[in-house]
C-alpha cells in the first residue's frame, strides 16, 4: 500500500492523468456527504480541497503513516467542516457606531473568535454551564428572536429575557473564574500544528 500510495503521489504531482483522476475520485467520494450543505459554493469548496491536497502532497506532508485515501479523507473533512462552520457563523449586527462611542473601539477586538489554544478551556467552561442555559443561548446563537423563543417555550417575553441575562452573567463569571489566569499564560505558547500538517 505504502509503495503504491507514494507512486500515486509522485505521479499525481507530475500531472499524470490517471493519478490525478484517481486522487480526484477519492476526494469526490469523501466529499460527497458535504455536498448538499455546501451546495451553493460547492465548486469553490471542492477546488479549495484540491488546492489543499496539492499543497500538502507537494510539501511532502503525506508520509505514509496512513493510506493515501485516509489521508485525503482527513483533508476533505477538515476543509468541508471549516467551510460549514464558517457559513454557520452568524454575523453580528453592525455595531461600529456603538463601538466607536465606547472605549476607543476596543469592543470589536474582544469579540474576535477565540484562539485555537483557548478553545479547549472555553469548552471546559461551557461544560460547567447548566444545560438550561446552554439550550437558551443555543437558540439565541441560532438566530431566534425573543418572540420566537417565547412562543416556542410558552414563556413570557420579559421572563425569557431575564433568564437569558442570568445565564449570561453565570457564564461570564465561570469564564472569568476558570480562564482568567490560564488564558493569559497560554497565549504566550506557540500555536499547535494542525493535524493535517503534523500527520502523514
Amino acid at each position: 500500500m505504502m509503495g503504491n500510495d507514494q507512486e500515486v503521489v509522485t505521479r499525481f504531482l507530475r500531472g499524470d492523468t490517471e493519478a490525478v483522476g484517481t486522487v480526484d475520485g477519492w476526494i469526490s467520494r469523501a466529499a460527497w456527504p458535504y455536498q448538499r450543505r455546501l451546495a451553493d459554493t460547492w465548486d469553490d469548496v471542492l477546488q479549495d480541497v484540491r488546492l489543499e491536497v496539492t499543497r500538502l502532497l507537494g510539501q511532502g506532508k503525506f508520509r505514509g503513516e496512513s493510506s493515501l485515501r485516509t489521508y485525503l479523507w482527513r483533508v476533505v473533512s477538515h476543509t468541508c467542516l471549516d467551510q460549514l462552520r464558517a457559513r454557520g457563523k452568524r454575523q453580528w449586527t453592525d455595531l461600529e457606531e456603538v463601538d466607536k462611542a465606547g472605549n476607543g473601539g476596543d469592543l470589536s477586538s474582544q469579540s474576535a473568535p477565540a484562539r485555537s489554544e483557548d478553545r479547549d478551556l472555553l469548552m471546559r467552561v461551557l461544560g460547567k454551564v447548566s444545560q438550561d442555559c446552554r439550550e437558551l443561548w443555543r437558540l439565541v446563537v441560532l438566530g431566534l428572536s425573543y418572540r420566537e423563543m417565547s412562543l416556542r417555550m410558552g414563556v413570557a417575553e420579559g421572563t425569557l429575557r431575564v433568564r437569558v441575562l442570568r445565564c449570561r452573567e453565570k457564564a461570564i463569571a465561570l469564564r472569568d473564574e476558570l480562564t482568567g489566569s490560564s488564558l493569559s499564560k497560554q497565549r504566550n505558547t506557540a500555536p499547535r500544528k494542525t493535524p493535517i500538517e503534523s500527520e502523514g
Partner: protein
Amino acid sequence: MNCNQAIEHLPWLLNGTLGEDETKAVEEHLAGCASCRQALTDTRRAWELFDQHIPSAPLVAYAADEDLDGFDQALLEEHLATCPECAAELELVRMSRSLAEDDRVAILAPRPPRAPVAPAAPTTARPVSTAGNRWRRAAVAAGIAGIIAVGGWYKSAERAHTLASQLATAPPPSAPLQAPPAPPAQSAASTADAERIATLQHQVDEMTKTLGEMQAAQSHAREQLAQVEKQSSGGPQVNPWVGDVRMSADVVRGGGGSVKEVPAGTAATLLLAADTAAAGDREAEISDAGGKIVWKGSGLRATPQGDYSLLLPKGWLPAGDYTIHLYRQAGGQRQAAESYAIRVK
C-alpha cells in the same frame, strides 16, 4: 429605554432579530451609557462561550478512532451528548469516511447523452422482471442495501438525519419554566410567529410520521433478508434505497467523478446521479461491451434529489465493461436518458 431594558435586549441586538425601533432605542442608549457598553462586551464574551464547538481536528480524529492530539476525550463526548450541531457533524464525517474507504458503494455521474438507442429484442441472459416479482426484488434489495451493501453508511445517514431534525426542531429547555399568564391579545408580529411555528411543527410532525413509515419498511426488509440469502440472485434490483435517500438530509446526489470500477466479489449499490432537466421514472438496461443486453428492468423511481439506485448482487455480472442505459417515456415513446459506464473487476 433604561439600563435594565437595554441590557436584556443585548443578546438579540447581537443576533440581529430586534425590530427596527428596538434596535434604534438600544443603540441610542448604548451610545450614552458606558456601563451598558460594558454589558455589551460581556454579552459578546458570553456569545463566544456558548458558540463553542468541538474543533474540527479532534472531531475528525474521534471519527477515525485515533488520538485526539491532547483534546480531552471525556470533554468531547460530553459536548457531543448535548450539542446537536457537533453530533450531526460527526455523523457527516463518519459517512464521509465510509464512502472514502468502502468501494462497495458507487457514485455514478451520467455520461454525456448519446443518440437514442433503439429498443432491442430481449436477448437477455436473464428474464426481465415481472410486475409480480418486482415488489419482491425491491424489498430484497432494500434489505441487502440496508444491511449488507452499505452497512454503516446507511446507519450514519439515518443518524445524521435524526440529528439534523432535532437541530431543526430545537427543543426548548427541559427544566420547567415559570410561565406567567399569556397576554390576552397577541400582536400582529406574534400572530405571524405563531403561524410560522405552527407550520414548522406540522412539517416536523409529517417528517416524523414519514420516518416512522420508513423505519417500518426497513424492518420489513430486514425480516426478508433470510429469504434473500436463500435465493440465487435474479439480477439487479431496482429502488433499493427508496426510503433512505429520500429521508436523509445528508445523503445527496452525487456528481463528482464517475466511479467506473465496480467490485464483482460483493454486492454493489450504484447511486445513479440523474440529469435533473427531465427527472422521472426510468427503465434500465445493462449491456455488455459488445452491446448485448444482459438485463433490463423498469420502475426506477427518482428521489426528490433526482437519484436512482440499482443494486448488483454479489457476482452477478462477470468481469468486464458494461453500460447502464436509462430510458424515459415521453409522448408514449421510449427515449434514451442517462447512461453510465462501469467496469466490473
